[in-house]
Each structure stands twice: as C-alpha cells, then as structure tokens.
C-alpha cells in the first residue's frame, strides 16, 4: 500500500497535482454529454454517464485523500508528531485575470485548485454522497421526461461544488459558489410547469444573490487591503487586516452638515450634526469577516436569509438531499472554515457567526415542531442543523463545526432519501406533491417499507443526538466547545495597531447563552424528529384504504385531489422502493450510526486519558493558523476530559433523550392528543409556528415592497420627469422658434428673390467701399518693419510712412509697400489712405513698437527656443511643450538702475 502511494506521489507532485483536473472535469464532462446529447442517448446511457463520471471523481477524491493522509503522516513522523502547516496539493490551470490593488499593484487571479485536508474531506463528502444520490436518482427519476436534464444538472452541480471546495482562491470559490446556486436554481425549478417551483427557484437565486453581494464586497476589500485573493496569501498577510476602517461617515464633506454645524441657535441641529458625523470604527478584519458571513448566511440559509430553503424543497427529493441538505448549504460553513484565519482576527465577527447560528438553530427548530409537510420539516431541520454548524465554527471549534457538516451530510441525506422513498411509495395513489408528503396522509409505513424505516430510524437517532450515533459526537462537541471556548482579541492591548480604537471583544455572557440556546435547540430537534419519525412510520396508514388486489381504474388515476386526510381513496399496499434506492439509504444509515467514531472525543468522559480523534488531527494543521496571531493565542478552551466536559456531555445526552422521550410519549403512546390539546390551549403560539412567524409575509411587505415602490417611483420619474420635462422643454423651445421663423416663409418667389437681391446689394456695397488693409511684417531683433497694402481694382494709395502726421505725397499713387527701421523701445504710427475708382477714400493707422526684448515666438514643434537679451545672456528658455523658464527675472529696482 505504501509503495503504491509512493508511486502515486511521484506521479502527482504536490505542485502539479493533475488529479484535481480529473476530479473536476469528469462531472463537467458528464454534465455536457448528458445535457447536449442526453435526449438522443436514452435513459440508460444517461444514468451510466452520470454515475460513471461521479464514480471516477469519487475515486479520484479517495486517492487524493489517501495521498494527503500519507503525506501528512510522513511529515508528522518527520517532525515528531506535530505538523506545522497543512499539506496542500496544487493544480494551476491558467491565469484567469488580473485585478489591480492600491497604487497599481497587480493582483493576479489564477484558475487554480488545491486540496488540503479540509477540502479533501469536503470533496469526499460531496462526491461520496453525490454518488449515492446519483444511484438513488436513477430509479427515483425513472420515466421523467427530463431525465437527461436532471442528470446533467446534477453533474453540473457536483462540478460546481468541487470548484467551490477545491478552489485555491476566493474567486474560484465564488465561481463554484454561484455555480451551485445556479444548479440549485435549475433543479428547484426542475418541474417548471408548476409556477410555484419556478418561483421558488428564483427566490433561492435572488436570496443567494444578496449573500453574494457580501462576498463581492469582501473580495474587493481583500484586494484593497491584502492585495491578494489567494487563501494562502491572505492567511500569511492577515496582519494587514488589522487596520482601522472608519466606515461612517462615508462622505468627505457635505454642505448641509456644515450648515447644520453653524446653527448654534438650534441645539437640535448641532446635536444631530454631532450624531451623524461621529466616526464609527471597526477593524478591517471585522468588516471583511461580516461581509463574507453575509455570503455564508445566504448560501447556508441562516437568519435572515433562510427563507429560500423551505421553498427549495419544491425540487425533486434527491436534489433536496444532495444540494439542500448534504452539500451546497454547508458551503457557508466550509467558507468560514476556509477563511478561519480572517474570522479569528475578529472576535466580534466570530460572535456574530455563533449567535446567528444558534439563533437560527432554535428558531428553525421551533418552526419545524408543527409543520406537516415532511420535506418542510426536514428543511427547517436542515436550517437548524446549519445553525449548529455555525455555532461550532463561531466559537472557534472549526473542526467540530466541520465534523458536523460531515455527519449531517450522512444522516440528513439519509433522511431526505428516506422521505423520497416514502413519497415514491405514496405516488402509487397520490400524485399531488403536497399531499404525498403530508404527515397527515402517512403513518404505519414501517410494516410496508422496512428498509426505509430502519435507515430512517438510524438517521433520526443520529440527528437527535442519541448517544454514540454520529450526530451525538458532532453536536455534543459543538455544545461543549460553545460552553468552554474563549476567544481573545488578537492584539495584546486590545487596540487596533496604530490607533486608539478598541476592538470589540467576545461578551462575557456569550458562552453560557450560546450553550443554553444550543441545548434548547437540541431538545427541540430531538422532539420534532421523533414526531416526524413516529408520524411516518407508526400508527395507522392514513393515505388511502388499502385494498388487496387493487386494480387501478382507467379514470382512477386521479391523484387524491382532495388531499385532505381521510379522503375516501382506495389503493394498493405501499411498497418498498427498489434496490437502487435502498442501497444508498442503507449506506448512509450505517454511516449515520457509526460515522461519529471518526471523532469520538466524548469517550474521554467514560475512558479517562482516551484520545482518538482522527478528524480533528487530520484537520488541525488547516486551522493551526487561526488559533493564534503572532504571540497571542486567540482561541482557547478547557481541555476535554474535565468535569465541565462531562457535564456538557451529560446535559446534551439528557436533552436528546428528553426530546425523543417526549415525542414518544405524545405521538406513540397518546396518539398526538397532548399536542392537539396544547395547540388548542395556546392557539396563538401554534398559529405563529405554523405560519413560520409570518416571516415570508414580512419580507414580501418590507424589503420587497420597498424596492417595488422605489421601482414604481423610478418608472414614474422616467416617464414624466425625465422624458416629460427634458424632452418637453426642448421641444417647446423648438416649437416657439419655429413659429417665429415661419413668418418669414411666405412662399412667394419674388420675396425670396428680393431678399437675395438685398444681400447681393450688400456685398456690392462692400466692394464699392475702399478698404485700407495692409499686412505688416517685422522682426523685433533687427528692427526692420514693412507694410504691404492689399491690392484692389482701381485703388490709389498714399502713405504717411515716417509717422510725422503729414502725407508723404498729396496725390494717390500706386506705391503699395513701405519699409523702415526702428530703434529699440521706439514706436511709430504709419498711416495709409486708399482711394478707389469711385473716388471714395479710406484711412487706417498702423502702430509699430520695437520692444526691449523680442517677444517670444510660440514654440513650434519640438524646438527649444532660447532667447537672448542685449547683454548676451539667456533670458527665457521655451521648452517644446510650451513651458517657459525665466532664467533671471530682473527686478524693477534693477531695471531702474540700468
């Protein structure tokens, strides 16, 4: 085995790891072939293509994972058990583009991918779970007219997800990020004939776009402050993020505010002025982290952008399992882990992450309590579990949060696939999507669908945190760390370096609040999962009356249109799904049960001194950077094995068992009566939960309504103000001018001719008058000047060339030129008189002054003109661009002395 890995290591060097290209391109190839040629290939070939491409990709991921582990082991043994940096294999494609940072500094962005322990683990989950779900889909989607389209989208999704996971820089991650969003959009609206599905897809996309806005802003900020988008470079240069960012006020100077400041009479105004101009500060790291987190909130469906995920269940169930439970929605958690070095610099941002996470966990769990649609329950459960993950990464337990991603992928995928299996069975008689997945139509299925039942049960136990299941280990670790972690400000004196601005730290009440909210969410989770499980598989079957040897009538293919529970509908026995669907269930169910032993920290409570946490150890190098900044240890926590840890484990075990127990009591032993009684006793609470706190309605009214109003206003402005006023004014001017000018257009030829003759007569008059024009030539340097009179028919000329005021000759002659010389600083007035053939005369004076220093001639072309004064020294130098340099400017006093 080692020899084989050695061979591979030689074949695939760390900086030219072409295996990544294979992993990435296989799904893309599958997507292309299926999408373009799918309809011609037939369903068999399509599913084969889809499966094979993902299988190769999965195999590649396994190899990459093995190589990473092998390299880490080698490095670990070399450095006595402590790996300093994470092993990373890189594959560079090509330079994608170059951005520019401050001062023209270039920021190249490469199409480059890298695999390190974190992304390897994620890639394994994506391709592994993806493979299982592909297998499941081959049967689930059988007979759908869009079969090839489905597989194309699904493969494209795997590709995008792998781009997201393996991207070496933030832009690549963003490409994958939007790619998965796009696939999600396409797959939610897969059955687009139903308008609601398409609307749900659009909602998902646009909500995600709100998050993407944050990511784009974060990228722009990172370019500006760090000058790189590469994860490695960002982590290495993260000290640049510890700068002060005064994000308010955003303007430099506003006249209105200046005016307000001067109004000392009205104290209100100056108070307001004081408020609005008080600068608000934060560290760049905080803003960047929060902007990134906005993206995560959108993608991972956290408050306040979670609203798209429940609606996204409109897509086919395997899609819900793969995209909206196991992989895509965890991308946010992955990104926080990936950017852990940045997040860790800002305890405030970390607290926001943790708090948003745990609030979402409780909030979504409370909604899930009363939902009847099984996929909706699972959707809210997903939101809630994602909240747990954010709680984990928010308190600095990145490995724990990420481990929950992995285990959640197992059990939530299993749950969704199980739900899909149930819906598949229900489709025997009930075809309406809503009715087929309504808890009120289900029940007692454990008798008919044993495989589904057992795997579902395993996953329910896991998600509820039943001891020793996967969910127990991951969730308990998060809760324990929430209680015991402490996040310090990364600078010793608590001030942003170089400023006096204090960095916001982690609140003292933080850990306990987070922990107890987490416990509450855990209890709720256990309860509603119990309710879901019992509602589907226990009790009596409520879908239809089961009739032996049921024969569907031709017209009987109506799909339980009433949809209401207890509709008089007859049908056959619900049947277990085919093997292709149950095998993935079994695999995932098994993983949900035993997957936790990959990271069984909690066993230390039972077995003192126990340490076996391969996942933690594997991922530790990735998060090593985030743990401390320089000398300051940012993330610290009480070590496992202590009393506190034991207490935490105890509390979470009790929480899980209590939730499950209450559910069993209410729904299995009492048939749900206590729940109904409670709902009748506090109807408002029930209504709030059932209507999901009316958040969708509020969103419809407040943000969407606002934008809608704005848009209407904009349309009004466009039509009436811009088009009406601007066009109206100009057309009015033109109309008035036209009305005036029209008066001159009589349409009578003679009038036009008269106008023409008047014009011609004017020209003739001009020619009849004499014009004493002359050209003057002169050179200031030599003092020679000359005048040449303009010629004219019948002109006679007489001059006063010496400037003595008397004509040189009495009569008019034909002399047209005069020449004379002037001394420096002398002037002369030359007169010229002209008489024409009609005896009309015209006179003109010409002033000549020879300056002391010749006036500079404008520099023509590229000549450098140097002017020399009488003394022989250079005075001015005229450069080719027209600039003049005065070499020595004589002062007036000096002038006088001379």
């Amino acid at each position, binding site marked *: 085995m080692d020899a084989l890995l050695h061979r591979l290591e030689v074949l695939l060097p760390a900086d030219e790891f072409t295996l990544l290209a294979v992993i990435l391109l296989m799904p893309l190839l599958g997507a292309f072939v299926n999408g373009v040629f799918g309809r011609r290939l037939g369903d068999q070939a399509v599913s084969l293509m889809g499966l094979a491409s993902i299988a190769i990709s999965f195999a590649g991921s396994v190899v990459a994972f093995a190589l990473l582990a092998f390299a880490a082991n080698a490095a670990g043994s070399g450095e006595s058990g402590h790996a300093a940096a994470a092993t990373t294999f890189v594959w560079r494609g090509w330079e994608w583009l170059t951005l520019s940072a401050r001062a023209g500094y270039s920021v190249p962005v490469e199409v480059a991918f890298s695999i390190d322990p974190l992304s390897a683990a994620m890639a394994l989950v994506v391709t592994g779970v993806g493979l299982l779900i592909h297998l499941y889909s081959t049967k689930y989607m059988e007979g759908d007219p869009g079969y090839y389209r489905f597989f194309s989208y699904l493969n494209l999704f795997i590709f995008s997800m792998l781009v997201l996971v393996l991207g070496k820089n933030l832009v690549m991650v963003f490409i994958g990020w939007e790619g998965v969003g796009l696939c999600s959009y396409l797959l939610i609206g897969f059955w687009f004939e139903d308008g609601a599905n398409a609307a749900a897809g659009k909602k998902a996309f646009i909500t995600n776009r709100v998050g993407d806005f944050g990511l784009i802003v974060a990228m722009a900020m990172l370019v500006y402050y760090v000058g790189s988008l590469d994860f490695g470079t960002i982590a290495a240069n993260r000290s640049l993020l510890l700068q002060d960012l005064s994000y308010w006020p955003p303007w430099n100077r506003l006249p209105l505010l200046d005016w307000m400041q001067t109004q000392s009479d009205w104290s209100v105004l100056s108070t307001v002025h004081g408020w609005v101009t008080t600068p608000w500060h934060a560290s760049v790291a905080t803003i960047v982290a929060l902007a990134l987190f906005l993206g995560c909130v959108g993608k991972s469906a956290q408050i306040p952008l979670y609203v798209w995920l429940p609606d996204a269940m409109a897509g086919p169930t395997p899609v819900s399992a793969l995209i909206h439970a196991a992989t895509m929605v965890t991308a946010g958690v992955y990104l926080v882990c990936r950017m852990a070095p940045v997040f860790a610099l800002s305890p405030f941002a970390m607290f926001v992450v943790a708090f948003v996470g745990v609030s979402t966990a409780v909030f979504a769990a409370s909604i899930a309590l009363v939902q009847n649609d099984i996929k909706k329950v699972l959707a809210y459960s997903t939101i809630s579990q994602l909240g747990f993950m954010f709680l984990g990464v928010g308190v600095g337990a990145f490995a724990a949060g990420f481990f929950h991603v992995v285990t959640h992928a197992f059990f939530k995928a299993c749950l969704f696939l199980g739900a899909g299996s149930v819906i598949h069975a229900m489709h025997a008689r009930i075809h309406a999507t809503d009715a087929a997945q309504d808890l009120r139509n289900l029940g007692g299925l454990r008798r008919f669908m044993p495989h589904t039942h057992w795997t579902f049960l395993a996953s329910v136990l896991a998600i509820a945190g039943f001891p020793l299941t996967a969910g127990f280990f991951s969730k308990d670790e998060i809760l324990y760390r929430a209680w015991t972690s402490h996040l310090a400000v990364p600078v010793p004196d608590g001030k942003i370096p170089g400023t006096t601005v204090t960095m916001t730290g982690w609140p003292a009440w933080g850990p306990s609040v987070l922990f107890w909210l987490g416990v509450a969410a855990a209890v709720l989770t256990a309860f509603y999962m119990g309710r879901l499980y019992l509602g589907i598989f226990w009790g009596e079957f409520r879908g239809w009356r089961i009739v032996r040897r049921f024969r569907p009538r031709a017209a009987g293919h109506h799909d339980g249109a009433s949809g209401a529970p207890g509709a008089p509908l007859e049908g056959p026995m619900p049947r277990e799904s085919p093997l292709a669907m149950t095998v993935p269930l079994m695999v995932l169910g098994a993983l949900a049960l035993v997957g936790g032993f990959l990271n069984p920290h909690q066993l230390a409570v039972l077995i003192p001194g126990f340490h076996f946490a391969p996942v933690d150890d594997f991922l530790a190098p990735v998060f090593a950077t985030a743990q401390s900044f320089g000398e300051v240890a940012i993330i610290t926590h009480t070590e496992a094995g202590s009393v506190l840890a034991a207490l935490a484990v105890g509390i979470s075990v009790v929480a899980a068992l209590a939730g499950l127990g209450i559910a069993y009591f209410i729904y299995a032993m009492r048939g749900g009566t206590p729940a109904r009684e409670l709902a009748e006793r506090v109807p408002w609470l029930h209504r709030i939960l059932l209507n999901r706190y009316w958040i969708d309605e509020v969103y419809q009214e407040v943000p969407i309504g606002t934008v809608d109003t704005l848009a209407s206003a904009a349309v009004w402005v466009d039509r009436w103000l811009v088009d009406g006023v601007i066009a109206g004014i100009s057309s009015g001017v033109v109309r008035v001018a036209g009305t005036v000018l029209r008066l001159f257009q009589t349409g009578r030829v003679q009038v036009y*001719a*008269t106008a023409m*003759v008047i014009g011609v*007569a004017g020209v*003739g008059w001009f020619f009849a008058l004499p014009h004493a024009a002359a050209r003057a030539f002169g050179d200031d340097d030599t003092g020679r000047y000359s005048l040449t009179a303009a010629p004219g028919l019948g002109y*006679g000329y007489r001059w006063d060339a010496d400037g003595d005021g008397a004509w040189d000759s009495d009569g*008019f*002659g034909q002399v047209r030129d005069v020449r004379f010389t002037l001394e420096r600083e002398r002037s002369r007035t030359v007169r010229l008189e002209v008489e024409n*053939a009609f*005896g009309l005369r015209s006179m003109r004076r010409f002033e000549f002054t020879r300056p002391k220093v010749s006036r500079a001639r404008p520099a023509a072309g590229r000549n450098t003109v140097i002017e020399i004064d009488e003394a022989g020294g250079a005075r001015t130098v005229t450069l080719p661009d027209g600039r003049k340099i005065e070499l020595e400017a004589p002062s007036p006093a000096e002038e006088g002395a001379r």
Partner: protein
Amino acid sequence: MILAGIVYFAVCALVVLLGAVGVVASRDPIRSAVSLLASILGVAGLYLKLSAEFLAAIQVIVYAGAVVVLFVFVIMLLGPDAGSRVEPSRARPSRVVGAVVAAAVALAAVLLLLPRDHGLTSFGEVPAGFGGIEAVGGHLFTRALLPFELATALLIAAVVGAIALSRGRGVIPKAPPPPVNPTARMFGGPVHPRDAGRPLGEEGMR
C-alpha cells in the same frame, strides 16, 4: 485704331445693355427672347475685346444657338398664352428694391466715369495664346478635370430631369409593368418557386 477700339466697346456695351432692357421691358416674350439674343451677342463681342476668343465662340454657339432657341421653342409651344396677359402691377417691395439697386448702379457708373488722378486699371499686354482654345482646354482638362466631369454629370442630370418633368404625370398614362422583369434572367429566373409567376421584388411579401 484707338478710336475703333473705343467705338467697338461702346457699341458692344450699348447692345448688351439695351438688349437687357429689352428683355425686361418687352411685354411679349418673343421680343424678350430676341432682345436676349442681342444682349448675348453683345457680351460675346465684349469677350472678343477681352481676348477671350474661345469663350466668345462658346457664347455664340451655346447661348445664342441653343439656349435662346430653347426659349423660343418653349414660347412657341405655349403659343399666345405665353404672355398675352397684362401683368398685374401692384407696388411691391421688390419693385422698390429693384429701383433702388438700379439707381445705385447708375450712380456708381457716373462716379466711375469722373476723372481721377491715379487713373484706371490697365489690362496690360496680352500673353501669347491667351484665351485661345489651347489655353482654355489645357486648363480645363488638367487642373479642372474633376469639375469638368462633374459638369457632364450635371448636364445629364439636367437632361434626365427635364425629360422627367416634361413627361408629366397626368398626361401620359403609366405603362403597365412587364409581367416578369428582364433582370430575373440575369440571376437565374424566379428567386423562389413560391414566387414563380409573380413579379420579382415582391417575393415574400405577406
């Protein structure tokens, strides 16, 4: 010899101006045309005095021989309608303007003929070949070639325009278009089977 030159100029100028007055003043257009002929011939005479022999010939051939004849043709074509009516003579601003301009020119003439101490502008010696067909043609076909070609285009346009105008819309009925345009042959028959039998240029019109 000098006297002959003076007389020649005076006669020619007189013919020109009297002819011009005749053009304007005659009520009958045919008299105007004949006066125009006289005036034009007078101008040709002045050209000769200015050593512009070639232009003088052109003046006689083109103006007297073609343009005036064209006028006469048209006048004959119109017959008695071409000016038998007495023109309305209202005092119009154009008449006032005309009178003023004429008076100004007359004044200028008087002023010009008064003696001056610096004299008049002499023409000087005539270079050899000046105004001959060789000189004008050489200039025309070298430096003024482009305008010359443009002038031919203008003349063609004028011919076409004159024909188009005088054909008259209402007089000659429009000939029906031929069933198939001959250009169809040039490009291999009807453009599309769909259009067979329909005139080209309308194919595809729905």
